[in-house]
């Protein structure tokens, strides 16, 4: 009974994901014109290509992922590997979980107010990247913590027995040993960033052109889709095409991670 129910539920979930992908591609198909990926949008996005948006997406999501990693990895290492009072570990864990639970639109408002308003970056790549990194960092830190905790403690003990410094132990042994889990976490967070519109709508803005400095406004794919749907009359067709592209990108990130982890496993 439970077997059947479980199998059905699994089949449903798989079918749902595949279904969304197929639906997007079928509906979006008309939007794919030659040069769609490189050309500039025309007619408020109803025609032309999507090139600048793709570039902006790469810049914003890439930079935010790097920034969040640079912030989260040392934090996770500190929480898992360093001597610290037990209450601090518990406390930071709770706060991180709250951070993960904060709705994206709230991060968006916060980012727009702090980075856009107080720091005066306005609607810009900088504001977007900083806000997105804030949103991704708690997710990444939590993932990094579980990845690092899964490393056999005997490895750290062995390094200690050899008299190796904590620094070398962590960066030369423990982090490399946890690398598959860390990569997966970073990719998961990047996926979130890729699909996020709420946090970027009020921060990096909706300009569908290639940003020339970090203080230019730049729309990522998700924001662009939102913009097409809400502010461009007759933009539905173009939104579908862009959504199909976004779906493909997200799938690509996940596949790349699975592939990289598979390589790792075979390399021993």
């Amino acid at each position, binding site marked *: 009974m439970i077997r059947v129910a479980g199998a059905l539920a699994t089949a449903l979930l798989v079918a749902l994901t595949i279904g969304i992908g197929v639906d997007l591609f079928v509906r979006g198909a008309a939007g794919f014109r030659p040069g769609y990926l490189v050309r500039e949008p025309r007619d408020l996005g109803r025609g032309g290509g999507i090139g600048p948006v793709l570039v902006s997406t790469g810049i914003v999501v890439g930079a935010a992922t790097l920034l969040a990693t640079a912030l989260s990895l040392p934090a996770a290492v500190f929480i898992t590997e360093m001597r610290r009072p037990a209450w601090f570990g518990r406390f930071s864990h709770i706060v991180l979980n709250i951070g993960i639970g904060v709705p994206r639109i709230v991060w968006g408002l916060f980012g727009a107010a702090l980075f856009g308003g107080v720091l005066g970056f306005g609607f810009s790549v900088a504001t977007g990247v900083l806000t997105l990194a804030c949103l991704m960092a708690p997710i990444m830190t939590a993932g990094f913590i579980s990845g690092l905790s899964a490393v056999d403690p005997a490895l750290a003990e*062995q390094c200690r027995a050899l*008299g190796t410094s904590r620094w070398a132990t962590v960066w030369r*042994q423990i982090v490399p040993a946890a690398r598959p889990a860390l990569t997966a976490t970073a990719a998961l967070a990047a996926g979130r960033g890729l699909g996020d519109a709420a946090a970027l709508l009020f921060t990096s803005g909706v300009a569908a052109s290639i940003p020339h400095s970090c203080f230019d406004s730049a729309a990522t794919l998700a924001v662009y889709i939102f913009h097409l749907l809400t502010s461009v009359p007759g933009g539905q067709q173009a939104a579908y095409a862009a959504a199909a592209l976004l779906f493909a990108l997200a799938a690509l990130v996940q596949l790349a991670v699975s592939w990289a982890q598979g390589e790792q496993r075979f*390399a021993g």
Partner: protein
Amino acid sequence: MIHLRYQQLALAVARRPVIEAVDLDLTGPGVVILLGPSGVGKSSLLKATQRLIEGGVDGWTRSGDILLDGRSIFAGPRRELTRRVGYIQQLPAMLMGSVRANVEFGLRHDGRTARREIRGIAEHVLEDVGLARELSLDAPARNLSGGQQQRLAIARAVALQPEVLLMDEPTSALDPISSIQIERLVRTLARERLIVMVTHKVALAERVGDRAGFMLRGERGGRLAEFGPLPAILHAAADEGVRRFIGMGAIVDQRPTTAAQILDKKFLVIGPGHNRHSLMAQAIGREEISGLPGGCADAGEQPDENAWNASSSTIDGLPPNPAARRVLEKMDLAHGGHASRPITAEMLEQADIVFCMTRGQCETLARQYPAHTGKIQPLDPVDDLEDPREGDLEFPCHVAGRIKELVRWRLHAAPQYPARPSA
């Protein structure tokens, strides 16, 4: 001359005492063995000696001191200690990368070895432990067999040229051949170092040890019950607790048990849990006919199909197939001679001494057959021989080897074996 001294060392974790006031004076070079049942703090003592366990960290508290050549090991930075004292884990964790990288890692980060010397030193120690001959030094360390990993761990530690080497059950998970390699290595290393080794294997202790300490459970954690030359401890322990432990189950029948008498009897191996499919019992059967090729396979080695069939059928009392029968005949072994079967009163009647694998088994058996209580005793005087619940055949094979060793040791020691002082 190396001098390691424990002064009233007591350890506790989360207020639970682990070791109570140990006083111990060790001088090297040589091999000192720490014996004792599980959970009496042998490993903790070893870890404390390298400050892997330290008061005030992870809930540990310590009182007393450990002196290395007269100076407290807790004074000064830990790095100074790790240069003089090496520690080898029971199941050594392999570092990232190749065999070579595993040895070079410690040297690279010890802050006193010149860069250009590192490669040479690593190759030298890997040669010493015999790995350089066996495999490519650029092979990933994680692919090594258990014995190779243990030797790599020794190489890693020795590369730093410590005066004291602490080894936690270095052969506990190894096949007999790898064990012997490690034993030889230990003897060689002990020429100029003090080696402190925790082990369960009495036979191993006798082969490699110079002196031994026996730890038992005291009121406030493990205590050092006895220290001295190994034969003295095993055959004429002064401590009542050690004597009781070694002679547990005790021989009421005071006739000297000779080898001939035991060998006359059917070889009665009481498998743990009386389980016919016990991995250990199967391995014992295979060891019994270990003259067969692949009787007990090493890790990664495919055992001989016919030998397996032969040993399986002799253990289970099933008819062997023709090929297996030929193998048995060639070995001059009667089929069915080793079949495992339920224990009967008659079997116990016939036996002079019944060796059990675990203390729990001894107690159960004594309850079932009160008339034979005096004959029943654990085979291993130090610890229980447990059947692994899972895992490959490597481990039970190793346990089976240990059982054979113990039987040999029992036969050898039988004449001087201490009878329990009559109450």
